């Protein structure tokens, strides 16, 4: 899946199109004119430092925030301003920053709840088994409260919860945040594996090096604006990206 056209020539292959999305926090521009084109089947990335507007952007895409202006279309349908629970049911799942698992629900209940969306309801049982196959640790802890899990396990649960809705596009917001290097590595190989299983992925990360290494196409967000974009490998060699994000002059 390396054949990604430039977003300017958005084609039929586009799964998610975001045009001119803007958002204000208390009158301050948080995101300005964000335009993305995420093709079917690939891994796209949105990178940038703290406070660049990455989370705000994906929250708008997923319907958790209402944009000031702009348009979001998913699979050819306009979903701008649609409530988040309806967007999930169209096959766009956001695994939010900070995991946000339901701490006082058991692991099993966390999964059951998300598996109840209309599009995935009939396959709920199989999906739980699939998540448990993917994360055997969660199977061991299925009756425990999610709050008692370690950070890495909570991240697995958050991703598992997203997968229960059988997404076509999975947006992961900083899945590697606060995890040990070994766990970070396993999260990135998981992203590749999910992608090979046919799920398109938008990866939002500060962990720029590893993200660009697996992303087909990436966008760089700075102070709420897209300042650069290109194929992941190419951005990795870009001097400006190197300087700003990789600590290499």
């Amino acid at each position, binding site marked *: 899946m390396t054949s990604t056209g430039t977003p300017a020539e958005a084609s039929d292959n586009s799964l998610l199109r975001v045009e001119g999305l803007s958002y204000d926090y208390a009158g301050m521009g948080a995101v300005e004119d964000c335009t993305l084109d995420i093709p079917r089947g690939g891994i796209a990335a949105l990178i940038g430092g703290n406070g660049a507007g990455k989370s705000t952007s994906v929250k708008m895409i*997923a*319907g*958790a925030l209402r944009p000031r202006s702009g348009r979001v279309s998913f699979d050819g349908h306009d979903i701008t301003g649609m*409530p*988040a*629970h309806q967007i*999930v*049911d169209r096959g766009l*799942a*956001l695994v*939010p920053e900070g995991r*946000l*698992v*339901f*701490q*006082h*629900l058991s692991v099993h*209940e*966390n999964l*059951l*709840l*998300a598996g*109840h*969306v*209309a599009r995935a309801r009939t396959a709920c049982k199989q999906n739980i088994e699939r998540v448990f196959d993917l994360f055997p640790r969660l199977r061991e802890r299925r009756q425990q409260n999610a*709050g008692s899990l370690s950070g890495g396990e909570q991240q697995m649960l958050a991703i598992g*919860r997203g997968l*229960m*809705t059988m997404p076509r596009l999975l947006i992961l917001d900083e899945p590697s945040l606060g995890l040990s290097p070994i766990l970070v590595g396993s999260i990135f190989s998981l992203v590749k594996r999910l992608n090979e299983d046919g799920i398109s992925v938008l990866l939002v990360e500060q962990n720029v090096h590893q993200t660009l290494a697996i992303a087909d196409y990436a966008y760089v967000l700075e102070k709420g604006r897209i300042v650069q974009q290109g194929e992941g490998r190419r951005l990795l060699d870009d001097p400006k990206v190197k300087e700003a994000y990789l600590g290499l002059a």
Partner: protein
Amino acid sequence: MFLFLQTTLNGLVLGGLYSLAAVGFSLIFGVLGIVNLTHGIFVVAGAFGALVLYNEFGLDPLLAMLPVGIVLFAVGYIYQRTVIHWAISRASLVASLVVTFGVAMIGRNLMQLTFGPDAHSITPSYSFSSLTFGPLQIDVVRVVALGASLVLLLLLALVLAKTHFGRAVRATAQQPLAAELSGLNVQRLHGLTFGISAALAGASGAIIGIVQPFTPASEVAWTLNAFIVVVLGGIGSPAGALVGGILLGLINAYTAQYIGPSLTQAAMFLVLVLMLLLRPNGLLGNAFGESR
């Protein structure tokens, strides 16, 4: 010894009613983070609803719990989806305090306009019969009231623990953003939570009507009782409401019996203050855990 047992029994019965009357207040506080000062209106409206149904159609107050509950469910749902939602989305969570207080005043005055300020009570045929256990004596209505309260609380606990709806309510209380992202319609769940809470308050009102006299102004006391029950027992769970309600019932009964009936309010507030000092989360804590 006999007096002590009789007082305890009375306190338990009273406590069961307090629990049922307060559980909705507790649920709304836990799930939406709103201190609903209209809660007492739901209780007293339930009592007046049962009174009207009894006087006009001879419907037994215990059966009246169903129609009264259904009507109040609808009222609670619509109330949240309109007035409460507007207040919160346009101002803040704190605004709901002012708005619910205002609506409570409107409600109280409307009831006074309709039914007058006098005390009413519902007196079905079994009002004056009583059961005796050895030396102990208890009114049939009180046994029935306690039984009905416990059944409804148990039902609510089961729904919250075992059904998809219950899981959805708990998840929404803990993590509204993640709940929405997991496909739950949080707005609707908030409305339903309000509806269920109002329905249970109304049902408790129908029972309260046969146990004690009530006036439109009683709503203040029932809101206050609900508040104290939550402080004593903890937020959000039927079990917490039961513990808090029974504690409040016992405090009331013992104070009235051994210290003086005029001092029950003072005792209630004393315990309230102590509780806030010693265990501010209530005996069972917040069922939904997350801090608000």
